[in-house]
C-alpha cells in the first residue's frame, strides 16, 4: 500500500512537471516546433531581452499583482477583524458574500465586472476608455480579497480573546492592542493569504481577459493572443526564467520558515518569531516597492508626454523586423519620435467588430476588410479621414479608389489586397483530388482538413462550391450552405483562424482554406505546402483598408500612420513580410522580385476576373448567418 502510494506520487509529480520540462527544453531550441529539437541555442534569451514590449508586459503584470495584493491585504485584514466582531447572523451573511467570487466561475466574474465597468463607465459617466488600469486593479482586488479574509478569519477564531483584553487592561488603546497583539497572532494567516492572492493575481488570465481594454494589458492576456498566432520561442525563454525565479522564491520562503521554527524550538524566543520578523520585513518591502513602482508608473506616464497610438491589426499582418525584413512600427516611431505605437491584434473581422461594439476601449487605427468597413460605415463606427494629413494618398492605385464599400473615399485607405484559396500539403494530398472547393469535403482526408472559424469566410466557400452568389440574402440558399457546412463537419479536424500556421507547418493537417498572403508565409516555412485558387468556381477577392474608429483619441497621429503606410518603399517592405498585394503605386518595385512575380501574391488579371468581393449584408441576414454558423459549431 505504502509502496504503491509512493510510486503513484512520483508518477503524478512527473505528470505535473512534464509539460514544464517541455517548455524549458524548447527555450534552448533553435527551431520553433515543440516536438522537434534541432540544436542548442541561447538566442531565445537574447531575443527576449531585446523585446522591450514583452518585458513591459511582465512589468505590467507585476505592478497589478503587487498593488492589488498590497491593497487587498491591508483592506482585507481590517475587514476580517471587523467581520470577526460582527453578530453571528450578520457574519454568516458577509461570509457568503465573500464566497461569491470564490465559488463563481472566473468567466462569470470576468464578464460581470466588464459589463459593469462598461455599463457604468461608458453609458453613465461618458468615459471613452472605461476599461483601464484602474478597473483592472479593482477586478484583481475583488478576487484577491476573499483569499485574505478566508485565511485571516480562522486565525482570529483561534486567537484567545483574553489576549486583547489583557493588552487593554495594561493600558493599550484598542488600536495599540491590535498592532501589538492581534496582528502578531494572525500574521501567518495574512502572509499565506497574501501569497495566495499574489500568485492568483499574477497568473490570472480569464478575469483579466474580459476586463482588459486596449491601453493596459497584462502578460497572460497577451500570451493568449500569442498562442493564437505562431508563437515565438522567446516566450518559452521567459517561462523558463519565471519558473526559476518562482522556484527560488518558494525555496527561500520555506527555508526561512523552517529556520525560524527551529530557532524557536531551540531558544524558546519570547518575543517575535524570527520568521515573522522576516515576513514582516518582506511585506513592508513589498508594500514599499509597490508604492515606488506605482509612483514610478504615474511619473513615467505623465512625464513623457508622448502620444500613444493604439493600432489594431490582423495577426501576422505587419513586418516586424524578423528574417531581415523592415520593422515597420520601429521605422514609424523613428520618423515620429513623439508617437508610441501600442500594437495589438485580432483574428477576424468579427472579433474586431465585437471588440469595438463591446466598448470601454480606445483604438486609433484598425484595418478591417471591405464588407466590414461598409458595415461600420453604416453603423456610424468610423470617422471621416482628413486627407490633408495624408498627402501620400495620391500613391493609391486607381483600382482601389471609389470602391463599393467606400464609394466616396471618405473613411478608408487601402492597406493590402488578396485572395482566399486552399493550402494543401503535396506530400499527402493527391494532385488529382485538387479540383476545387470540394477538396475541403473529401472524405479521403477526413480529420486532416482545417476550416475557417468565421461565418463569412466559411459560408463564402460553401456559396462558391454550390454556385450561389456570395452576397445572397435568400434564406433558403443560406440554409443550403449551412447544410453543406454541416455535412463537412465530420471531415473537419478543427475550425481555426491563425492556429492554421502551426497545424499546416507541422503537417498535423494536410488541407486548409486561408488567405493567400498567410498561405505564402506558411509555404516559406514548409516546402511541401502548395496554394490553389479554385478559379472556375470563384473565390473571394478582398481589400483590407485602414480606418479610424469613432472611439479614437489620436486621430491626427492615426492619419500620420496611414500616410506613412502609403509610401511605396514602406508598403513594399511591408509586403515582403506579409506576402500580400500592395494597392500602392510603385510598391511592387520595392518588393523582393521573387515575391513580386509570384502568382500567389499577384495572380494574373485573367484569373482575378473570377474573384468576387463580399458585400455588406443587412443586420438581419448577418445575424441569421451567425446563428446558423453557431449551430454548426455546437451541433
Amino acid at each position, binding site marked *: 500500500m505504502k509502496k504503491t502510494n509512493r510510486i503513484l506520487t512520483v508518477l503524478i509529480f512527473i505528470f*505535473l512537471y512534464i509539460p514544464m520540462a517541455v517548455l524549458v527544453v524548447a527555450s534552448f531550441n533553435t527551431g520553433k516546433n515543440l516536438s522537434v529539437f534541432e540544436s542548442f541555442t541561447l538566442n531565445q534569451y537574447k531575443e527576449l531581452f531585446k523585446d522591450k514590449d514583452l518585458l513591459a508586459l511582465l512589468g505590467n503584470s507585476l505592478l497589478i499583482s503587487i498593488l492589488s495584493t498590497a491593497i487587498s491585504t491591508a483592506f482585507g485584514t481590517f475587514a476580517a477583524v*471587523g467581520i470577526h*466582531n460582527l453578530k453571528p447572523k450578520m457574519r454568516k451573511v458577509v461570509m457568503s458574500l465573500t464566497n461569491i467570487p470564490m465559488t463563481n466561475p472566473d468567466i462569470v466574474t470576468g464578464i460581470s465586472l466588464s459589463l*459593469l465597468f462598461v455599463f457604468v463607465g461608458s453609458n453613465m459617466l461618458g468615459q471613452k476608455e472605461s476599461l483601464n488600469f484602474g478597473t483592472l486593479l479593482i477586478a484583481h482586488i475583488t478576487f484577491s480579497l476573499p483569499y485574505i479574509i478566508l485565511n485571516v478569519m480562522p486565525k482570529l477564531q483561534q486567537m484567545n480573546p483574553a489576549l486583547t483584553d489583557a493588552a487593554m487592561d495594561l493600558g493599550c488603546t484598542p488600536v495599540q492592542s491590535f498592532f501589538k497583539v492581534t496582528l502578531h497572532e494572525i500574521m501567518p494567516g495574512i502572509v499565506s493569504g497574501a501569497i495566495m492572492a499574489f500568485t492568483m493575481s499574477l497568473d490570472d488570465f480569464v478575469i483579466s481577459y474580459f476586463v482588459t481594454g486596449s491601453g493596459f494589458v497584462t502578460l497572460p492576456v497577451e500570451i493568449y493572443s500569442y498562442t493564437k498566432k505562431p508563437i515565438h520561442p522567446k516566450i518559452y525563454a521567459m517561462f523558463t526564467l519565471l519558473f526559476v525565479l518562482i522556484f527560488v522564491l518558494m525555496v527561500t520562503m520555506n527555508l526561512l520558515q523552517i529556520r525560524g521554527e527551529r530557532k524557536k524550538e531551540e531558544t524558546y524566543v519570547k518575543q517575535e518569531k524570527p520568521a515573522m520578523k522576516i515576513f514582516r520585513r518582506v511585506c513592508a518591502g513589498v508594500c514599499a516597492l509597490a508604492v515606488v513602482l506605482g509612483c514610478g508608473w504615474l511619473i513615467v506616464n505623465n512625464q513623457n508626454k508622448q502620444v500613444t497610438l493604439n493600432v489594431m491589426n490582423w495577426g501576422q499582418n505587419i513586418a516586424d523586423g524578423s528574417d531581415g525584413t523592415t520593422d515597420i512600427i520601429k521605422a514609424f516611431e523613428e520618423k515620429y519620435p513623439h508617437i508610441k505605437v501600442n500594437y495589438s491584434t485580432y483574428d477576424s473581422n468579427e472579433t474586431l467588430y465585437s471588440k469595438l461594439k463591446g466598448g470601454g476601449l480606445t483604438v486609433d487605427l484598425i484595418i478591417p476588410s471591405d464588407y466590414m468597413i461598409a458595415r461600420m460605415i453604416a453603423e456610424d463606427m468610423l470617422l471621416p479621414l482628413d486627407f490633408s494629413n495624408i498627402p501620400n494618398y495620391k500613391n493609391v492605385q486607381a483600382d482601389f479608389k471609389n470602391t463599393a464599400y467606400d464609394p466616396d473615399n471618405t473613411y478608408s485607405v487601402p492597406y493590402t489586397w488578396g485572395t482566399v484559396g486552399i493550402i494543401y500539403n503535396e506530400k499527402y494530398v493527391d494532385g488529382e483530388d485538387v479540383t476545387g472547393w470540394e477538396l475541403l469535403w473529401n472524405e479521403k482526408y477526413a480529420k486532416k482538413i482545417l476550416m475557417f472559424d468565421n461565418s463569412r469566410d466559411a459560408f463564402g466557400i460553401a456559396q462558391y462550391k454550390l454556385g450561389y452568389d456570395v452576397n445572397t440574402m435568400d434564406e433558403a440558399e443560406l440554409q443550403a450552405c449551412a447544410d453543406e457546412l454541416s455535412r463537412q463537419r465530420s471531415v473537419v479536424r478543427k475550425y481555426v483562424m491563425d492556429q492554421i500556421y502551426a497545424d499546416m507547418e507541422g503537417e498535423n493537417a494536410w488541407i486548409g482554406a486561408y488567405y493567400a498572403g498567410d498561405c505564402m508565409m506558411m509555404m516559406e516555412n514548409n516546402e511541401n505546402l502548395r496554394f490553389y485558387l479554385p478559379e472556375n468556381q470563384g473565390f473571394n477577392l478582398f481589400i483590407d483598408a485602414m480606418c479610424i474608429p469613432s472611439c479614437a483619441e489620436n486621430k491626427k497621429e492615426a492619419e500620420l500612420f496611414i500616410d506613412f503606410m502609403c509610401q511605396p518603399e514602406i508598403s513594399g517592405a511591408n509586403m515582403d513580410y506579409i506576402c500580400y498585394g500592395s494597392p500602392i503605386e510603385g510598391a511592387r518595385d520595392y518588393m523582393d522580385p521573387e515575391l513580386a512575380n509570384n502568382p500567389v501574391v499577384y495572380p494574373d488579371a485573367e484569373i482575378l476576373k473570377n474573384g468576387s468581393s463580399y458585400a455588406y449584408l443587412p443586420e438581419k441576414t448577418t445575424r441569421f448567418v451567425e446563428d446558423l454558423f453557431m449551430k454548426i459549431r455546437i451541433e
Partner: protein
Amino acid sequence: MKKNKALLLSGPYILFMVIFTLIPLGVVGYFALTDPDTGAFTLNNLKNLALFLPTLGTSVGYAIVSALICLVLGYPVAYYIAHRKPLTQKILYMLTMLPMCMSFLLRTLAWVGILETNGIINTLLTGLGLPALELIGTPGAVILGMVYNYLPYMILPLYAIIVKIDRRLIEAAEDLGCNGVQVFSKVVLPLSTPGILSGLTMVFVPAVSTFYISQKLGGTETMLIGDVIERQFKYANNRNLGAALSLVLMLLVLVCTGIMNRFGGDEEGGVVV
C-alpha cells in the same frame, strides 16, 4: 462600542463587495433580459438557451469525469504527503503548488506539443516502429488537460484535511481490531470528507467553465459552454445571449456547490487551501 468598531471596520468591505460582486451579477441579469438591438425587455435570450443544453450537458459531463479522476489520483498523493516528515511535507507541498504559479496557457500549449499528430508522443512511438495514435482533438485530450491543470486544486485541500487527522484515532481503530482497509474506510475516509468535497468543487467549477483547454486540446466535437460564452462576447457580439448563458452557468455551479455543502455541513472558511 464593540459593535460600532465591527461595523466601522467591515462596512467599507461589505460596501466594496456589494458594488463589485453583487451589482455586477445584477448587470448580467439585466443584459440577459434585454434585446441586443433595442435594449427592450425580452425573454428571447432565455428561450434561445434550449439550443445550448447539449453543450451544457457535455461540459458538466467532462467536469464531473475530471473531478473524479482528480480525486482518484489526488487522494493517494495527498495521503502520502501528509504522512511524511514535516520537512518532506513542506517540499512536496511546494512542488504541488509551483505549477499553479506558472502560466496555465503555456502549460496547456505544451500538452498540444506532446499530443499532436506529429507531437512528442507520436514521434517516440513511430521511432520505436509503433503506429502513431490520434490523441489530440479527442474528448480524452480535453479531460487530460483538465485533470492536469486542476489536480493541485484537489491535492492541496485533501492534504490540509488529512494532515490534521489525529493519529491516535487510527491507532485506536487498529487496537480495536480494524485491518488496514477498515481503518481507511471507517476512520480516514469519513474524516477527510470535507477535503474531498472542497477538492471536488475546486476542480469542478473551473473545469465546467473553461474555454482555453477545449480550444487548444479539443477538436470539432468538444465545444464547451465556456467556449460558447466566450464566443458570444469576443466574436459574435451577442453579449445578451452571453449574459444569459453566464447566468445559467452560475446557477448550475450554485446548485452543485449547494449539494456539496449539504453533504459536508457548512464550515466557515473550510475551503481554505
